[in-house]
């Protein structure tokens, strides 16, 4: 009985991958444990091993094919003596070309729509870039510009980054400036704070912000407060960055969104970009900023492509929200991956004839409340969207600001769509339920629109 060999999922967030190289040919006999192919995930190139033994009957996907969906058939394995024609006929189709096999990406970013770009020079062209590439480019550009900028963290150098963010940077900048640390977040965060006091501009990569909990004392007590405590004599010009929030199926200890935690702290600046353009422009500004900046990324967004201004030095100022869509009936306010749900809901609301304004906060401290207040004065309704927990959330703070500064303009209570008030469950169905969804946003929007 022929067996279909399926494209494997090799990371928590992998939905598709590139079939880099076949290490077997049609007609080869394989046994369990033999390496069949090299598969490039969003994080790394992995070897894919055979589980069953048999003979490779057909390679269905040509090597070099990108965007092969997880669980799609990539080869047919025959039993001894079985011929290809005995196998399921439907599975036997000519090996497609690389281009033809490229399946539509399952998690495509919503189209950018009438994004309101600020201050770009006339004639600026755009290039398509993933968030991952944008972050890497931002760091590399700043390291070329300023010798005192360096990158440190777990697996940033020789491993090329746990999420491939720093891929190639060791080659360019050397081990003096791209530094692998031991797994010791508290310690290396403290060393980086000291290095910042001593005249350097460290970029500290946390493999995820969940691990930064170990370093919280150094981030808050040492990095954020020293400028004040020293009467302005010395501070910590540095960036703490890494993925924040839920990836996929990694459970309660690896899924938390810390946006509200850090946004609470005077002395820190807190950035959480959605698009690749903002990731690039804001990270460059963050590295140049003379203060400690928490730069919250998202693992699911790393592989998503956006249009990025093709400029030699593209920066985005910290503390300014971006209006993604202009509209008159309702304001949706979000940041980071929450923008995905906000924009999807905006598409659906548009189909219902609702004119939606979508604001990407981008920066949570300083928080551009002015843009939100002005928008709500126009639309009179507001829904906030974020992945974090509901209590003391970014949304609850915005609600408070709107009550104080736009009370008379509100035609409905502000609703905060958040992650549910539970530790993140592992089970797929429960995890889906725990996260904020486009449906949650739609329900909230309909509620404030009284529809």
């Amino acid at each position, binding site marked *: 009985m022929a067996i279909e060999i399926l494209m494997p999922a090799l990371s928590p967030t992998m939905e598709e991958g590139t079939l880099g190289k076949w290490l077997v040919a049609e007609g080869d006999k394989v046994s369990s444990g033999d390496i069949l192919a090299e598969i490039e995930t969003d994080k790394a190139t992995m070897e894919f091993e055979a589980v069953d033994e048999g003979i490779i009957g057909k390679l269905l996907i040509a090597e070099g094919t990108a965007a092969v969906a997880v669980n799609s058939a990539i080869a047919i394995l025959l039993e001894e003596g079985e011929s290809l024609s005995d196998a399921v006929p439907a599975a036997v189709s000519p090996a497609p070309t690389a281009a033809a096999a490229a399946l539509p990406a399952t998690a495509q970013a919503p189209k950018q729509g009438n994004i309101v770009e600020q201050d770009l020079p006339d004639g600026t062209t755009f290039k398509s870039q993933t968030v991952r590439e944008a972050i890497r480019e931002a760091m590399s550009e700043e390291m070329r510009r300023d010798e005192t900028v360096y990158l440190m963290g777990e697996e940033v150098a020789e491993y090329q980054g746990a999420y491939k963010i720093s891929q190639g940077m060791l080659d360019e900048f050397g081990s003096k400036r791209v530094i692998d640390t031991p797994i010791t977040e508290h310690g290396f965060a403290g060393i980086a704070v000291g290095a910042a006091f*001593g005249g350097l501009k460290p970029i500290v990569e946390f493999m995820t912000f969940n691990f930064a909990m170990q370093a919280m004392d150094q981030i808050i007590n040492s990095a954020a407060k*020293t400028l004040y405590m020293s*009467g302005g004599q010395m*501070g910590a*010009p540095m960036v703490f960055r890494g993925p924040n929030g839920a990836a996929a199926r990694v459970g309660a200890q690896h899924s938390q969104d810390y946006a509200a935690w850090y946004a609470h702290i005077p002395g820190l600046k807190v950035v959480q970009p959605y698009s690749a353009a903002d990731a690039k422009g804001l990270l460059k500004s963050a590295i140049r900023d003379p203060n400690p900046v928490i730069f919250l990324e998202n693992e699911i967004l790393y592989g998503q492509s956006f249009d990025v201004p093709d400029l030699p030095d593209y920066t985005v100022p910290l503390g300014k929200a971006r209006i993604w869509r202009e509209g008159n009936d309702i304001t949706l306010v979000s940041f980071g991956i929450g923008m995905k749900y906000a924009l999807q809901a905006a598409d659906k609301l548009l189909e219902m004839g609702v004119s939606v304004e979508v604001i990407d906060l981008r920066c949570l401290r300083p928080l551009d409340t002015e843009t939100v207040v002005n928008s709500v004065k126009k639309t009179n309704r507001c829904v906030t969207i974020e992945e974090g927990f509901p209590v003391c959330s970014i949304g609850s703070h915005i609600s408070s600001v709107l009550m104080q500064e736009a009370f008379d303009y509100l035609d409905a209570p502000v609703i905060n769509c958040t992650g549910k008030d539970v530790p993140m469950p592992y089970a797929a169905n429960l995890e889906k339920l725990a996260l904020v969804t486009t449906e949650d946003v739609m329900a909230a929007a309909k509620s404030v629109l009284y529809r």
Partner: protein
Amino acid sequence: MAAKKTSKANVSKDNLMHFYREMLLIRRFEEKAGQLYGMGLIGGFCHLYIGQEAVVVGLEAAAEDGDKRVTSYRDHGHMLACGMEANGVMAELTGRSGGYSKGKGGSMHMFSKEKHFYGGHGIVGAQVPIGAGLAFADKYLGNGRVTFAYFGDGAANQGQVYETFNMAALWDLPVIFVIENNQYAMGTSQQRSTSSAEIYERGRAFGIPGEAVDGMDVLAVKAAGETAVAHCRSGKGPYILEIKTYRYRGHSMSDPAKYRTREEVQKVREEKDAIEHVRDLLLTGKHCTEDDLKAIDKEIKAVVNQSAEFAKESPEPALEELWTDIYAQAEA
């Protein structure tokens, strides 16, 4: 205190006079601070350094210009020893605008960029990776400087200290870990809190050399400091000095110190006092007379009294200061 004694050779009269003056300044300053605390002029926590003076004075004698230092909340002595002004330190204790942090840091949080004093940190052990980070920056910049990272026997049980030992050794950072072992982590004696009798030996697990030093002997401290500085400055990586010392006062001003006997404190004061030790050397060596020392006492007293006056008279920070120094402004 089974620590190494050094010979008293090669110490000039000027050295001894300098040590006497510096240690006495710290002691009289701290006594005055205690007095001002009692009068309600100094608030919050105030951790006095009395008894430990030889540690910072000995090590500062081994430092060069541009070397850095960072310590915990028991920091007044370190600041005076590295040349910060008594006026500015005392005015910070009283929370006045003339203080090193404009009154916004207090006893535990003071800094001087000019004197390369990087705090003044209130979280036990947090200054240790920061000290290694300063050394990291110096190595990166290739400027030949070393950093003294001071911490106590209590902090020596914090995990981040060992995270730092590991990286400092791995990366050959020019940092001297100075364990000021005053035998009590607040109210818990070393015997009750620390598995090792000799804390510096913990460095061996990381390949960091170290030694125990008699912290009541300023000459021994200076000599050990010179060994450590030479090691670090030559690029051999970190060094540990466990300096056995003793604090005469409580952990802070509000500590009744019931965890040790009055006799224990009295015995150290009478038999081991670091200032008395130098005084004896000066007098028995006929380097100076009682009158010379009295003149120094008088001079120090004047400096300290002046600092107290300054600290009382310096105005409280302007109310606008509440909102300044939260964020640094980008340079244009």
